[in-house]
Each structure stands twice: as structure tokens, then as C-alpha cells.
């Protein structure tokens, strides 16, 4: 329990104290929101108005500025939830559990955007709205995992038990999500093009004109994710604090 243990005030874990997190969050939130909206605004405007059409894909290439960052954040949100769940299970920091809870709806929306833009993009390119392409299918499965995770949070009344159960679900779900990814790849080889920005290899398959606004959009989506998670975590903390204050008031009577 954080309250029982001495924590170096300079340590990053000191922000695991919910009330201290609230003050930090209040300080950084305006900056995060401004930076996120600015970079998404500039990135999307640059991409939409300032880049040429692709020779093969025509103007549909402009969808890349939504599709790729959303897809990236859909996966990263789950990964962040996985890390936060592990921190909760190991160190029992409430902020961590609540941050995982706060990130889930953001992940859902990112997954939805990736799916919708993917379907709209696929229509002219592949001639169909929906193809059981491995990547699209994997995102659909990820979407189902997000729904189950959120539903479990909603269904369990005791907040600590809910945090425990959802953390284990997140861990087990991650393993099965990876398994599903390979199963789906085995099941259908797919139409989807290779990844646009293979970070690991350093190479890339998109031309510079498309690349720079795309990077700006990815940064913007990442900042927006962080801003949303900070705000939503603060919301969860405030609700828990209000409930704790009321529970104490009842106890005193």
C-alpha cells in the first residue's frame, strides 16, 4: 500500500499517490490538450490541403493521416493498459488501475476510427467495404477485447476487485490477442499493404510529401491519447475520492 510505505518525493512513484497525481495532472493537462489539438489540426490540414494525390490511389491517400495514427494508438492503448495492469497487480497503485480503466474507451474509439477509415479506404481500393483481411480482422478482434474489458469494469461493484479482475483479463487477453493475430494470418493471407512506417527497420514505404504530415498526425494522436487519459484518470480519481469521503461520513455517524 502506497500510504504505508515511504516513497522518495523525487521518485516517479510519488505520482502514484492519487491526490498528488491530481495536482500534476492539472498542471500538465492544458499544455497536453493545446499541443494535441494543435498538432492534429496542423497535421490533418497539411495532409488534407497540402499534399498531392497518389498516382495509384488518387485522393484516397489522404485517409492515411487518420487511419495510420488511429491504428497505431489502438494498439498502443492496449499496450499501455497492459503495463498499467501489471503495475497495479504488482505494486497496487490505484492511479495505475484507474489509468488503465480510463484508457479503454479511448482505445475503443481509436480502433473504431481505424476500422471505419480502413473500410472506407478499402472500398475503392479493393472494391469492397469489408474484406476478411488479417489486419482488419485483427482489429475487429481487438475491438471485441476492448468491449469485454470495459463491460467487466462496469459489471463488478467493488472497485478494487474490478481492478484486479480486469487486470488479469488484460493480461490473458493480450496473450490471446497475439495468438488471434497469428491465427488470423494463417487463416487468410490478406490484401492489406505492408506497414507504412516500419519503425524497426528505419525504412519506409511512403514518399516524403506524405510522410511528414503523417508523422505530425501520429504525434498529435499520441498527445491526444495522453491528454485524454490524464483527464479521464483525474475524473476517475475524483469520483473515487468523492465516494471515499462519503463512505467516511457514513462511518462517523
Amino acid at each position, binding site marked *: 500500500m502506497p500510504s504505508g510505505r515511504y516513497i522518495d518525493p523525487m521518485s516517479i512513484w510519488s505520482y502514484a499517490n492519487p491526490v498528488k497525481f491530481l495536482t500534476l495532472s492539472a498542471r500538465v493537462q492544458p499544455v497536453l490538450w493545446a499541443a494535441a489539438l494543435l498538432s492534429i489540426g496542423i497535421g490533418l490540414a497539411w495532409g488534407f490541403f497540402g499534399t498531392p494525390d497518389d498516382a495509384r490511389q488518387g485522393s484516397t491517400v489522404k485517409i492515411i493521416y487518420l487511419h495510420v495514427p488511429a491504428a497505431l494508438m489502438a494498439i498502443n492503448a492496449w499496450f499501455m493498459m497492459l503495463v498499467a495492469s501489471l503495475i497495479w497487480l504488482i505494486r497496487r497503485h490505484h492511479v495505475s488501475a484507474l489509468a488503465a480503466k480510463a484508457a479503454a474507451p479511448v482505445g475503443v474509439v481509436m480502433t473504431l476510427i481505424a476500422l471505419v477509415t480502413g473500410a472506407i479506404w478499402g472500398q475503392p481500393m479493393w472494391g469492397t467495404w469489408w474484406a476478411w483481411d488479417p489486419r482488419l480482422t485483427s482489429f475487429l*478482434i481487438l475491438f*471485441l*477485447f476492448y*468491449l*469485454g474489458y470495459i*463491460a*467487466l469494469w462496469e*459489471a*463488478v461493484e467493488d472497485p478494487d*476487485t474490478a481492478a*484486479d*479482475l480486469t487486470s*488479469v*483479463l488484460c*493480461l*490473458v*487477453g493480450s496473450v*490471446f490477442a497475439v*495468438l*488471434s493475430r*497469428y*491465427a*488470423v494470418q*494463417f*487463416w487468410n493471407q490478406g490484401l492489406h499493404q505492408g506497414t507504412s512506417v516500419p519503425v524497426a527497420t528505419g525504412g519506409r514505404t511512403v514518399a516524403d510529401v506524405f510522410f511528414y504530415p503523417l508523422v505530425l498526425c501520429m504525434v498529435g494522436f499520441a498527445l491526444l491519447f495522453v491528454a485524454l487519459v490524464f483527464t479521464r484518470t483525474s475524473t476517475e480519481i475524483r469520483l473515487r475520492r468523492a465516494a471515499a469521503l462519503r463512505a467516511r461520513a457514513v462511518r462517523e455517524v
Partner: protein
Amino acid sequence: MKALLLRDLRLALRAGGGFGLALAFFLIVIVLVPFAIGPDPELLRAVAPGVLWLGALLACLLSLDRLLALDFEDGTLELLATAPLPLEGALTIKALAHWLTTGLPLVIVSSVLGVMLGLPSAGYLWVVVSLGLGTPALSVIGTFGAALTVGVKRGGLLMSLLVLPLYVPTLIFGAEAARRGALGLDATTPLLMLAGITCGVVACMPFASAAVLRMGLR
């Protein structure tokens, strides 16, 4: 352990135990399929392995509801948690009992129901083998879902939502093996993958299930 297995089997077979419900559900799903997609024998033949797999999966899911919920309501789970039997072992046994009363009969019946869908004769062996390898994984994964939702009121629907995505890899490899087998193609790779999933799941999931059940009982 043997006592728990025998008790679960006896309970399932007694009146109100729900044995046969899953089988009847499976039968009805298979009967409804031609109504839904038409009586064309070619079409039915093509979808038969997949439909058998999907029907078995849904029948399995349907019966998960009773796996832990009844024992939770009458306090048996709390008493088991204080018994010398480790909870991991108890849950493995309960999954085994679930498989013996649901999965195994489904495997046997599937070969008969294949006739109704015009399953090609080459496919029977593969449908039965893939279901036989895959249904234990369904029972074990389902036990995890049941343990997750044990304290939740009206948790049945929630459990389906949690368990179905976890069933995806098993379904894909199982149905793929049955489909390839029915088409006379080589089904070794998906069967091996399916067996791998079943082994991994049987080895690891009981620990997650027991951990989750302890949290739920608290």
C-alpha cells in the same frame, strides 16, 4: 480430486443438471442452418465443418453458465477454497467434468449430425479429431470466463462477451483443420496448432482462473 469429479458428473447427470441441454442446443442449431442458408446440398457440404464447429462452440458456451455459478450460490466454492485441494486443481477438475459432460458428447454427436449437412465422407474423421482436440481448450478457457464473472449478478451475457474473443484462435485452427480435412487437403498444420493451443491453455489457464476466482470470492 476424484471425489470432486465424480460429484460433478453425478450432479450433471441428475435431473436439473443440464446434461443434454447443450446437446439439444447443438442439434437445434444444426437443424436451423439449412433453414437459414437454404437446402442446396453443395452449399451445405461446403459450410458443414465450420457450422459443426460453431454449433459445438456455442453449445459449450451455453453450458458454462452453470459451471461455477451454482457452486457459488450455495457456498460450495467458498468451502472448496478453504479445503486442502488447491483451487487450481479443483478448477481443472471442474473443467474436465464440463468437458466430459459437454465437449465429449458434442464430439460424438457431431459425426452423426455431419450426415444431415452432407459432410463429405473424408471429413468425418477430421471433424471428430479437431473437435476432440479443441473442445478441451473451450472448456478450460470457459472456466476462466466463469471464474471472472462468478460474483457478478446476471453474469451470463457478460461471460459470453468475455469468452467469445478468447475462443477465436481455437475456432480458427479447429475449423480450418476440419475444413481442410473435408476438402481432402493436408490438415496437419492447423491440427498441430490446435493441439498446441489446447496443451498451452490446459497448462496455464487454471492458474489464471484460480487467481481470478480468489479475487472474486474475496
